[in-house]
Structures are given as C-alpha cells and as structure tokens.
C-alpha cells in the first residue's frame, strides 16, 4: 500500500512520464559507472571509522541514480571517492570504481586529474562558498575550457557564454566579468552547473545541490538538471537526503544507512512500496499534504539516533530504531538479498516481501 505518490504538478505536465519510474538504459547495456565493494575509512587514533562499507552499485548510461540517506551515512564520501577527492586522513580501503570498465582507483594521479572535470564532473552543496571569491566567473569557467578542451580567446568566450545561457542565466556576457559575491545562491549554483557541463561529461555527480537553496529555486535547479540530462543523455549520480527530490529526478534509488546499502530499487517501485523499514520510516517522515489539516497530526520521526561509527552494532545497524525488529535482527548482520526487477534489500524481515 503506497503512502506516497509522486506528485505530477499541473505546471509541468511533462514531468510525470519523465520522473519516477521512467525506463532508463536498455537492458543489457553496460553500465557507465560501476562501484564494486567500496570501502572508505578514516583512521583516527581512537580507531578506524568505516564511512563506507562494501558498497556496490551501478549507474547506467543516461540514467539518474539517487543515493539517499541521512547525514553521516556515507553517501557524500562515496561521491568523493568516485572523484578520488576523499579528504585526508580518509582513504579508500577496498573495492573498485570503474568508469567504462576502467578502474579509476588504479589510475595515476595525473591520469585521474584528466578524468576529473572532463569525463566526470561534480557540483556541490554550498553554492555560496564553492566559487573562488577573488576570481571572476569568467575566469573560473574559462580555465576549464582551456584545460580540458584547449579552447582559448574568442571561441572560448563564446562557448562560455553559451554555457551560461544554457543554464538559464539572463545576461551571460555581463556575468562573465562579475565576481561571485554579486550573485545569489541560485545563480551561483547555475554557474556551477555550467562549469560542470563545460566538457559534456559522461557522468555528473550532484552532492545535495539544492539543500542550501530556497524551495522555489530548488524546483528550478532540479528542472534544469532534468532537462540537461534528457537533452544530452548524461548520467547523474544524485546525492540527497530528501525523498521529495528523489521523486523528481531519479530513475533508480539506492538507500544507505550506516555506511552500507540497505535498499535498491527503481524509483516508482520504491514509492509504491518500500521494502526496508528504514525507507518506510523516511517516507513516513515526509510531511503529508494530501490529508485535511488535523490539529493532532504530529510529524513522524524515526526514533533514536544513528549509531556511532566506532560503536557499530554487530547485528543489523538499524535494529535499535526499527519498528519491526525481532528475533536475530540484533545478533546477525543481514546480507543483501536480490529480488526481482532490480530490487534488493538488506533486512531479515523486509516489508511487502514480494510485490504481487
């Protein structure tokens, strides 16, 4: 029984078929990005913090994969690991990350540098601080064009203007000469997207790009990203904690908790019926707009807190907060179970075990 329906707003009717549950790559096509058994850890003198544990996922061509979870579940670190930008003292402990079959983790630094910003690009969460305040927008845009596409002078300027226009900035030529502090957050994020698009990357990683923005601006940015993807066929790895955003952009969803994958599913199927209790909890926690306002209505929150990374339970990591924990949940760590239609879950007592 579904408690959540992906909204199709009348303002953007084209959204309904394009969003949740749309078919992605033709079956059998090789995935663009393969993450296999990724483990990332932070060695502190108190012990090793495993931020990501045994994570395996794929992103197909032309598809948007959403990586969902709350703060600290390891989703941002996963994204940084793909770019090989995990901050010190963290490092990748196990696994492989393949782009078109080539293991990025095995590349030399120079080779990886060439991939970064060219084949894979990334946009970040805080547009206010992601741009260098003492360099003009134009400079920051042109340096990518010069570095990866060898464009200079007039052709570079023209391309830069075109990029800014593509992301919906009204006065591209003027913006090129401006400094970032003159732009609003939404505009800066558009600039970031333009910079990420400059080399027509195969994969764009978006790390919570709308979290720091106004709701209305958020909708615009998501719309922009969706349009760009439809037009260019690039893949997106979309990191977010917000299921509402997931419904708007994602073809498939991977839910993370405590550094590991706990559920994976095509988007529509997920919203129709989540399998993992945690996913169910996330959905229940979304504010409801389809019921009449009831003064006694209380926002649902999942009780408890995320386990401390140095004190992870030996059984299921979600057991302490799970409303249906039972039996060996606390004792045995559940393995990933593969189901039909690309769904999988990590739970001893999954909900709605098989869709009818």
């Amino acid at each position, binding site marked *: 029984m579904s408690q959540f329906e992906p909204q199709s707003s009348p303002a953007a009717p084209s959204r309904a078929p394009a969003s949740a549950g749309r078919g992605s790559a033709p079956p059998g096509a090789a995935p663009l990005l393969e993450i296999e058994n990724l483990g990332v850890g932070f060695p502190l003198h*108190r012990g090793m*913090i495993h*931020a990501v544990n045994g994570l395996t996922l794929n992103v197909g061509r032309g598809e948007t994969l959403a990586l969902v979870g*709350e*703060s*600290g579940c390891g989703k941002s670190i996963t994204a940084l690991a793909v770019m090989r930008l995990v901050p010190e003292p963290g490092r990748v402990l196990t696994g492989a990350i393949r782009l078109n079959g080539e293991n990025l983790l095995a590349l030399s630094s120079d080779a990886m540098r060439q991939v970064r910003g060219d084949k894979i690009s990334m946009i970040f969460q805080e547009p*206010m601080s992601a741009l260098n305040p003492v360099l003009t927008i134009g400079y920051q845009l042109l340096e990518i064009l010069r570095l990866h596409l060898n464009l200079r002078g007039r052709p570079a300027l023209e391309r830069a203007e075109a990029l800014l226009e593509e992301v919906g900035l009204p006065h591209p030529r003027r913006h090129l000469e401006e400094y970032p*502090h003159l732009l*609003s*957050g*939404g505009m800066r994020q558009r600039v970031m997207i333009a910079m990420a698009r400059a080399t027509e990357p195969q994969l764009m990683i978006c790390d919570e790009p*709308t*979290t*720091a*923005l*106004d*709701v209305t*601006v*958020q909708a615009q940015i998501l719309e922009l990203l969706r349009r760009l993807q439809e037009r260019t066929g690039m893949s997106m790895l979309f990191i977010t*904690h*917000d*299921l*509402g955003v997931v419904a708007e952009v994602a073809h498939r969803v991977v839910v993370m908790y405590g550094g590991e994958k706990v559920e994976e599913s095509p988007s529509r199927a997920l919203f129709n019926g989540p399998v993992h209790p945690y996913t169910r*909890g*996330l959905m229940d*926690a*979304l*504010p409801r707009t389809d019921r009449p306002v009831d003064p006694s209505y209380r926002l649902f*929150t*999942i009780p*408890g*807190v*995320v386990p*401390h*990374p*140095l004190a992870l339970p030996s059984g299921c990591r979600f057991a302490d907060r799970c409303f249906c924990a039972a039996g060996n949940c606390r004792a045995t760590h559940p393995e990933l179970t593969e189901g039909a239609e690309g769904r999988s879950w990590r739970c001893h007592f999954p909900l709605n075990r098989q869709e009818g």
Partner: protein
Amino acid sequence: MMREEANMAKPILTGTEDVTFIPKGESLLRQGLRRFRKNRMALASFVFLVLLTLVAVFAPLIAPAHYSTDDLGATYEKPGANYPLGADFMGRDVLSRIIYGSRVSLAVAFIGALVSFLMGLGYGVTAGYLGGRWDEWMMRAVDVLYALPSLVIIILIMVYFRAGDPASFKGFKALLYEWDRAMGGMLFIFIGLGLTSWLQMARISRAEALSIRRREFMENTQAQGLSHRRVILRHMLPNILGPCIVVESAHIPLYILTEAFLSFIGLGVNPPMPSWGSMINEGYQAMRSYPHVILWPVVLLTVTVLAFNYVGDGLRDALDPRLND
C-alpha cells in the same frame, strides 16, 4: 551577501549530524587546559616564566651582590669566580644586575598588561553595552587616537616625565615623582604604557561586548529586568574575558620590548636601577672588546620574549584551536 533560506524540507531525521567523538561533559576550560598541556614549547615556556618570576621576587636573596655595588678597580672584568657573568663598565656584577633587571621586565609585563587590560576593557565594554550614540562617539575618539603613532607618543610622554625637576613640584605632582623615584622609575613607565596601549583592547572588548549583546540570552536577562550592572558583571563579562585575555597576553612581548627600548634610549628606568634595555646600551660601548657585557641582557631579553610568545600562542591555540590549525 545574500542569504538563502534553508530548504523547507530539512533533514528528515533528528540525530547526530556529527561524526566526531566529543568526550562527555568536558568543559571548555578543561579542554583548553588539556590542549595547553600537550603543547610542549608552551609548557616549557610557562615553567621558565614561573622560575623567572621566582628569581625576580627573591632577587635580594639570590643575587650575589646589590645591583648598584660598584668597584671601579674591576671594570669589565671577564666572567670568573668573583663575577659569574663578568662585570660592567663600573665594576658592577652583571649577574646581579640581570637578576634585578628581570624584576623590571616582569613588572612591566604583568602590571603594564593589567593596566592596559583594565582600561581598555572598561572603556570597550561600556561603549559596547551602552550602544547607540554613546558607542559611536566613544569609538570615534578611539579611531582618531588609534591613528597616532604610539611609539612617538610614548617617547614624548616619557620625555615630559623625565625632564621635570622634581624638587620644584608641589602637591600631587611631587607625590607622583616621589613614588616614581621609589620605584626606580617604573611608575611613569606604567603610566606611559597604559596611556598608549589601551586602544586595541578597547576595540576588541567593545566588539565582543556587541556580539554578546546581540545574542539571545542577553535579551533574556533584559526581559528578566536585571539591573545594568548585574547584566554586565554576571552575563557579559565571563564570555568576553576569554578572548580578551588571549589578546592581551599576546601584547606582553610588546610591552617588554617597549620598556627595553625606552630604557635603552635613557627614558626608562632611573639609573642605577638596571633594566635589560639599559644594560644593552651600556654594553654597546665596549661591545667589541668586552662582548660579555652586552651578551647576557640580549640573551635574557630574547628568551623571555620568546617564552611569552610561546605561552601566548599556546593560550590562543588552547582556547580556540581553529585559529591556528
């Protein structure tokens, strides 16, 4: 800079956002002490300063001779049995003069800092607390004074104090000169330093006072109807003192060096009271033939300033480690 409103759909779950492990219940002060203790140079410097203070306090017991005991037959004697560090141009024992000189430097360090701290703090907190036009005019005065070169001013002040003929003064002025003479010239040094160094403290304490004033808990106290004085003393000051102390202790090396400079050019302590600065001047004359006379005050001055620098840095790192990584 424009602010974006936080996304309406905040993180769904409450829970610790932070992965760092904070030991339970450790107060800020104890954390600070722990960090300070780990900083070896700061700790060593602190120990050195404590020892130096003891030497200064017990100078009459430790020094082999009084600082003014001279022996014109033993001028510039090399270090030896009679004179552990040698003798100066009047046959006075260098070691004893160094020991008594530490009194001057440490007195300037602590009392000078205290005077400047109190003056600046009083002025700044008042301005910050009163706010409005009071604050505006008080700080404008500070801005104008801040532009003046404090060294030139302190030199002029000291010239003014030193050039008077004490015998001709009456009343309060005579009393001041009397006290100053009794203190070997230190009183006017304190006054001079205090007059020229309170400005920065005033600025900082006022900034801190303003930021505290804007915080919510101050509104609470005003809502509770507490008296002005109580608000300042109990609520404002404890929060301001920390950063202000850190800032002021970073100035101490400057006070020591300023006093050394003043004594060096003859405007500081009254001879025969020794200051490391005046000893450097005296040693300069015979530097080429008898370097031992200038060497020791140079070394002591450097090491003491170094120690205060380390301790000041250590304090700052301990209480706000973000500033220095």
